[in-house]
């Protein structure tokens, strides 16, 4: 049973504010991913949890007890670093044993000859070695126990780092971009391995990454961090379907969500210029409908429907490029009446891919649009009334 609670954590480096008050709670056994663009303060937050960096104010609690005054080793946590931080002069086995040796043996017992003199020390060393063997087996590295880190591949080093974090059975597992030094294939493999391992051990985990795909595929819950704030905390699904604001919507999902300029009338109707039918109705009471305003409409690529250019109620665009991905394809369109610079992306199934670069098509966004106010907030929209839906087009592709 381990829970982690951060309350009002603040941190500045000199005059540079890196963490605005951050509150975050992590449930027992949860896999929490902190994701955000480079430089937003993720590593700093993780290092504060670990005790490697001291926060300016606020409190870190593990299992309800404040750990702010505890040294990193006393917090009973383990951390995996982006660089792996393996001790290069030690063998894999020595790397894995170090946390155990430091915890279980005092400085006299750690002296090189102590094991020769005392049976108790020998027993302790043997016990540590057993645990090390077990951990090495967990990450399939048993054959490499006597190798030095430089003799291992990137993926193997990464697994040594994981195993070193495992040996002590910590209450809390902290990982800082552990996959960013691996190639793409190995990364997706290791992704599932880490999730499996975490599920098996049930250890509460905070995982930091700037890669939203990693976040979406691994997390129980994701905290999206931007400029020192946690802007949204939720399940991958919530983040995808109900982004708190424009920044989250842009950050989550591949390709990035399409944004089109639109207007919001006092009645709450959202219209895209050049399109007769309204695309959404904003729920009243959001404070945004007092006067006519410019807003942005966000449509995910998978919700863009391509249609015949003549289709009523469709915007027209010209296909710039078709990105074939195997099972599906991404079609990049420039929107005609918004000027060539304005591009949107549609995801279509590769089965009905009948388009080429240069084709003119119409496109529709019949369902699931997001509306973002000028300040970036997402405005809640009413489910589209059935009569406003354009006719399902026979010509739609």
């Amino acid at each position, binding site marked *: 049973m381990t829970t982690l609670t951060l309350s009002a954590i603040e941190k500045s480096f000199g005059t540079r504010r890196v963490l605005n008050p951050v509150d975050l709670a992590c449930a027992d056994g949860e896999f929490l991913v902190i994701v955000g663009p480079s430089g937003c303060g993720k590593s700093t937050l993780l290092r504060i949890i670990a005790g490697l960096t001291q926060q300016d104010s606020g409190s870190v609690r593990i299992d309800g007890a404040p750990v702010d005054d505890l*040294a990193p080793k006393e917090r009973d946590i383990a951390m995996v670093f982006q660089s792996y931080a393996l001790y290069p002069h030690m063998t894999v086995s020595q790397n894995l044993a170090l946390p155990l040796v430091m915890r279980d043996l005092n400085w006299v017992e750690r002296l090189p000859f102590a094991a020769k003199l005392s049976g108790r020390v020998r027993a302790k060393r043997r016990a540590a070695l057993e645990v090390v063997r077990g951990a090495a087996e967990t990450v399939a590295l048993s054959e490499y126990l006597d190798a030095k880190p430089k003799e291992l591949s990137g993926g193997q080093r990464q697994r040594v780092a994981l195993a070193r974090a495992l040996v002590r059975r910590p209450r809390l597992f902290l990982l800082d971009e552990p996959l960013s030094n691996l190639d793409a294939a190995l990364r997706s493999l290791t992704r599932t391995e880490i999730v499996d391992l975490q599920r098996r051990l049930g250890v509460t985990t905070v995982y930091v990454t700037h890669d939203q795909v990693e976040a979406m595929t691994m997390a129980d819950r994701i905290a999206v961090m931007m400029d020192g704030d946690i802007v949204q905390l939720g399940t991958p699904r919530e983040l995808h379907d109900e982004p708190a604001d424009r920044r989250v919507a842009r950050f989550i999902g591949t390709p990035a969500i399409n944004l089109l300029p639109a207007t919001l009338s006092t009645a709450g109707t959202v219209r895209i210029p050049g399109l007769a039918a309204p695309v959404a109705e904003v729920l009243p009471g959001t404070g945004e409908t007092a006067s006519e305003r410019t807003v942005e409409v966000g449509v995910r690529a998978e919700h863009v429907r391509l249609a015949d250019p003549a289709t009523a109620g469709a915007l027209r665009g010209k296909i710039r490029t078709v990105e074939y991905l195997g099972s599906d394809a991404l079609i990049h369109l420039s929107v005609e009446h918004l000027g060539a610079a304005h591009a949107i992306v549609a995801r279509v199934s590769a089965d009905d891919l009948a388009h080429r670069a240069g084709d003119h098509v119409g496109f529709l966004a019949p369902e699931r649009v997001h509306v973002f106010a000028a300040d970036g907030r997402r405005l809640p929209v009413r489910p589209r009334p059935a009569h406003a839906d354009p006719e399902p087009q026979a010509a739609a592709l």
Partner: protein
Amino acid sequence: MTLAFAPTLVRRRTLARVGASLIGWAMTLPFVAGMVLFLVLPCIAVLGMAFTDWSLGAREFGFVGFQNFEVLFGDRTFRQSLGNTLIFAAIVTPVSVAIGLWLAVLVEASVRGRAFFRSALFLPVVSTTVAMAIVWEFLLHPTLGPVNTLFAALGLPRQGFLADADTVLVTLAMIGIWENAGYVMVLTLAGLKSIPSDLYDAGAIDGVDEGWSRFWAITFPMLGPTMVFVVIVSLLRSLRTFDTVAALTQGGPRGSSEVLLWTIYEEGFMFFRVGYAAALTVVFVVLLLVITFVKFRVLDRAVHYG
């Protein structure tokens, strides 16, 4: 057709290759010539002279075989000189490396005044030894020197330091340590900088977080390559010591601060026994080569190179 063409083609290609390598040689020539002229030839000359009885300025000389070496190993001055040099190096190298390492770790850890300490402690390296020697001579003067005044104030017996045959070598070694420790510190500081801070973070979490355990588990092994280099350089520097001896003691009193380089200088340029000095030089160079060999064969194996 093809067959008929082949030989000329081959010849032309060979010519081109020769031309290319000629250009290569031409371009390295100034450097190679410099090396041959100033390094290789003098070395050969020294080796040759070691087997002659040539004195500086003499019109003629004869080959005497190994006679110089025989005289050398039977000579009391040489044996004292060799012994002194080894004792000097045996004191200066470990002590200055230990102090320099300690200073480096201290300076690296100090939050404030890092730049000041770094320059202050590097001062002995950049300052002219001969100029500093005057300061030492004054400081250590048997009767007028402030150090002896201090000793007297503390109730300690006055020391002859450089003037006393019993203390002169140790005193010179202290000066050598003072000169070398700053050098060691600067080299070690560079080594310390290259240790990734992640290792210390990982260590802090694994429980290697204070002074000694951190030093032995992370800092020292990571400094391995730097330390090998530092030890070898310090050893070679201390075996080569000359200027403090020349400026302060000239080998005295009574040969008790005679070191190899000083003896060579004396024989060659004061007594003009060039053949004999050359033989001394050969012995000296062999000593240095042995040390370099030991470095490559022994130390490099024991050390982790990242």
